[in-house]
């Protein structure tokens, strides 16, 4: 598969994403500078973490107007899979590709630690290789990861099964303490109604090799690759 990993001024997890896709997952991945107008031959887009444009104005607010994001909008509208990680999640929310917004952590602290995520649904291109309810141990590193959506949007998201991951304790309880940022209903990651665009605050690319302390993040990349392969073989058939 061909992955495009976007690169904005201030992205800093772009190389990690490329490394995991290429060297761990064994697929082709290339960096795409934010000034590009086209995605080229791309099966899926990754919007990596970092501090695009210095987080000026609001996190992700300026990056969403980059030329490459126009191409991502068009790609997503045609059903192309897009995954945003951390700042990438913030950018996708600002772009209106995902519902809600990410605001300052309730504690006002920048939180950098391992968290436990519960897989809320396996019915998505990003979770299909997980067991229902499977708990993943993946690190977070952010100051603005508190998910917010108004009551109407949240109800709609739940009705559409759009919450993909929640912060839980190691035992799987969604307590207030289990969440590093005070997110609404412990939400860690969501997808759009069409299910081809997703975002999460934790960093699966930092948890895809045992040598880094855990490989649970691989399941998210494996899910995405699995769904791309299924799509490809369905097209060939």
């Amino acid at each position: 598969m061909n992955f495009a990993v976007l690169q904005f001024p201030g992205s800093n997890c772009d190389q990690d994403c490329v490394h995991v896709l290429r060297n761990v997952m064994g697929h082709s991945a290339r960096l795409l500078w934010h000034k590009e107008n086209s995605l080229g031959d791309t099966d899926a887009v990754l919007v990596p973490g970092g501090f695009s444009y210095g987080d000026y104005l609001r996190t992700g607010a300026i990056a969403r107007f980059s030329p490459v994001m126009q191409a991502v909008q068009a790609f997503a509208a045609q059903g192309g899979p897009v995954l945003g990680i951390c700042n990438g999640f913030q950018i996708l929310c600002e772009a209106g590709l995902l519902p809600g917004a990410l605001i300052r952590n309730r504690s006002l602290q920048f939180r950098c630690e391992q968290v436990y995520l519960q897989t809320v649904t396996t019915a998505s291109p990003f979770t299909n290789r997980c067991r229902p309810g499977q708990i993943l141990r993946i690190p977070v590193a952010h100051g603005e990861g508190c998910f917010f959506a108004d009551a109407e949007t949240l109800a709609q998201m739940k009705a559409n099964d759009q919450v993909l991951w929640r912060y839980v304790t190691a035992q799987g309880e969604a307590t207030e303490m289990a969440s590093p940022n005070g997110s609404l209903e412990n939400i860690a990651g969501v997808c759009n109604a069409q299910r081809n665009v997703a975002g999460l605050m934790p960093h699966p690319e930092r948890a895809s090799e045992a040598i880094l302390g855990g490989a649970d993040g691989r399941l998210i990349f494996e899910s995405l690759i699995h769904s791309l392969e299924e799509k490809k073989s369905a097209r060939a058939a």
Partner: protein
Amino acid sequence: MKAKIVITPKKAVLDPQGKTVQTALEHMGFTGLSGVHVGKYLEIELTGSDVEAARKQIDEACHKILSNPVIEDYRFEIV
């Protein structure tokens, strides 16, 4: 001309900064505070003198990029 823009968190949105500032003020002995909301203030210098056109443009900018309508409200004046 100048546009003076104030952006504030929506009432329904958690405002941990406001809460922390309020607690600090109370610790310092300031009394009678029922809420603190921390927002942003922007000044944009404008060329030209057509106030209506400026108003229209600034409103669009506020809606599109300067504020996020999911979490923030904005108001502005052209002076």
